[in-house]
């Protein structure tokens, strides 16, 4: 861990917030993507949107 | 009643995100203020509490327009008026739904926008408290105004015109509380008065609104 001096709070929170936002974006993207692909596969197989 | 609340919230979410939009308007308004009065940060921080209150008020106001109008146009109000649910309750619920979709997000977002206007650090808490106490009154007064103007084509502006004077006391006490909070003065009196207004509005205005609505749809 490098010595961040008196700005440790700023630097770490910047990294924390940014990485968290990117992680949220990734999770949302992947989750929506999986769900959409699964639904599509289901429709292609069963021929019906529900059930 | 819960059915109505759920439906209103669902509609707000679905019809292009009624949730986000009041908020977005609030944001945009806050952004436009520096464009119009200039970028000096001391000036901005002086007017910040007032601008934020005014912005919240206008965001509420803009969304009132269709609080009842859509239900009127597609005949929902006619049916609601003949349904077992008392119209007073229905309107109170509609007011609550409006607050949840508009007032609440504003309360939550206000601090972030305070940053844009250089609101002094001590002002954030009181800003939020005053908005939380005041926005229910804004929603209920708005419901009443919407009930008064519902059958009128192009009622949007008329509605604003009717409602804005009714908003004055809420605005005065709310903005005063936020302003005093920002400069570190005591905020008790305006906050108590604000809470009083809100309580009164929530308790009494549904009746006035229902009476008005019965007349408009006649």
């Amino acid at each position, binding site marked *: 861990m*490098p*010595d*961040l*001096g*008196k*700005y*440790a709070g*700023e*630097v770490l*929170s*910047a*990294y924390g*917030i*940014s990485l968290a*936002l*990117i992680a*949220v*974006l*990734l999770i949302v*993207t*992947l989750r*929506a*993507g999986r769900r*959409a*692909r699964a*639904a*599509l596969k289901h*429709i*292609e197989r069963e*021929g*019906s*949107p529900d059930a | 009643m819960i059915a109505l609340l759920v439906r209103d919230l669902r509609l707000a979410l679905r*019809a*292009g*995100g009624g949730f*986000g*939009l009041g908020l*977005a308007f609030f*944001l*945009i308004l806050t*952004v436009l203020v*520096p*464009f119009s009065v*200039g*970028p000096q*940060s001391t000036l*901005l921080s002086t007017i910040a509490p007032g601008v934020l209150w005014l912005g919240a008020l206008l965001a509420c106001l803009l969304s009132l327009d269709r609080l009842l109008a859509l239900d009127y146009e597609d005949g929902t109000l006619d049916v609601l008026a003949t349904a077992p649910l008392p119209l007073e309750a229905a309107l109170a619920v509609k007011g609550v739904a409006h607050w949840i979709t508009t007032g609440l997000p504003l309360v939550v977002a206000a601090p972030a926008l305070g*940053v*844009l206007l*250089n609101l002094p650090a001590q002002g954030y808490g009181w800003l939020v408290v005053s908005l939380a106490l005041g926005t229910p009154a804004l929603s209920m007064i708005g419901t009443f105004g919407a009930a008064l103007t519902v059958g009128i084509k192009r009622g949007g502006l008329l509605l604003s015109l009717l409602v804005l004077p009714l908003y004055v006391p809420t605005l005065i006490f709310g903005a005063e509380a936020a302003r005093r909070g920002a400069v570190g003065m005591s905020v008790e009196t305006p906050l108590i008065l604000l809470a009083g207004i809100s309580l009164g509005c929530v308790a009494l205005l549904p009746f006035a609104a229902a009476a008005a609505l019965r007349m408009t749809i006649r």
Partner: protein
Amino acid sequence: MSIWEYANPVRFLALSAKVQPYAWGLAAVGIVVGLVWGFFGTPDDFRQGSTVKIIYLHVPSAWIAINAWIMMLVASLIWLVRRHHVSALAAKAAAPVGLVMTVIGLLTGAIWGQPMWGTWWAWDPRLTSFLILFLFYLGYIALWAAIDDPDTAADLTSVLCLVGSVFALMSRYAVLFWSQGLHQGASLSLDKEENISDVFWLPLVICIAGFTLLFLALVLYRTGTEIALRRARALTARQERVA
């Protein structure tokens, strides 16, 4: 074979499936190497102290935020002129990524501003234009969400993107006219005089490359999602008509 072949969803998906593993992999490598190097391996600036390390997030995200909009503009034009669905969907897929990057740029900038300028926010032209860009992203996404016919939505958002870009440019000039800045000018320019020192430069470039690849991977994947949604919608609608 013309590049327009990839406007066909199937071909696009095939190509995207080939490209995506590399994009994800290289993006991960770039971001990890760039950030780790930047965070652990570079010295503090003599004036800014350790806060310079924020640059490895701030500049790449700002860069993506701006270029994502440009990519959406190009994709919108392609949709309006040639009506390739994949293009419209790619624009739709890119918008939320651009929005998040804008938010990251704004937040890291704000955090950086507190120690450097003594304020979270100032109405500096660059900051202000960035905020306006944020608003354009919001409006664009809201318009997509509000229209249920996908083609109409694609048409209207494309028109908005075009007109919006013109107004965004005008806003940029207006804002420059209206306020003087605190923010640094472009320091990654090719002319060496004002460039930031080499120690910071290399990891920063790696980070920018990593973010760009991440953007690419995300957009490819999200476009795939949009295609799946459209296909599901098309199939259900047709099945309803059989019944």
